[in-house]
């Protein structure tokens, strides 16, 4: 009964991350992909909430998209595309933001 939330936009660009965090249940995980990977490094207004998620092991960041953008020193667990597939297996559904 859990959802894998994937998000692909920067929190500086849209409110999608804010909406997503507001609708995440306790069993849900969040995977940052594409432009959203910067949310695991930049000090935006939702960073504290992401840090809490990371502390609970519920924040993942797609490594190839971090590398593509030269982003280092992020919170959350590094995740490959294979890891992405495993997250899909773990959860009942996926919600793209």
């Amino acid at each position, binding site marked *: 009964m859990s959802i894998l939330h994937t998000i*692909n936009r920067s929190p500086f660009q849209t409110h999608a991350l804010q909406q997503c965090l507001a609708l995440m249940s306790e069993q849900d995980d969040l995977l940052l*992909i*594409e*432009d959203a990977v910067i949310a695991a490094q930049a000090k935006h207004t939702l960073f504290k909430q992401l840090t809490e998620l990371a502390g609970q092991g519920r924040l993942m960041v797609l490594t*190839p*998209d971090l590398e593509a953008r030269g982003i280092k020193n992020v919170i959350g667990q590094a995740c*490959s*595309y*294979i890891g*992405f*597939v*495993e997250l*899909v*297996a773990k959860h009942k*559904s*996926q919600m*793209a*933001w």
Partner: protein
Amino acid sequence: MAIDSMKIAVLVSSAPYGSQGASSAYQFCASAVQAGHKIVGVFFYQEGVLNASQLVSPATDEVNLPDFWAKLAIQYQFPLEVCVSASLRRGIVNETEAQQLSLNQFNLKAPFVLSGLGQLAELSAGADKLVQFL
């Protein structure tokens, strides 16, 4: 085939170039089949239908995503379904539609096929998981 193999349907909502979503979808599909899962089909909707154009012609040192899709789908034998109404609105046309609409050209790439939204319902019904890329 892994014991816990999943049947996955994928919905692609973004164009092959200009945003990353379709590339992410491709990499996801390639990893899923590598890991022993089955892609039951990829459905292209919204700007995603542009992935089916045989006229996509990037420079030779750049990724040609329609080619990538075609090769992966042939190798792992899954259908590439393209929503017909979303396609016609965006100028993706197969030979039959071109004849019906009296158009001089068509540009749907093989093995992509035009199909209705009912086909998405069928993929959804036959899949353990549905994954969408925006």
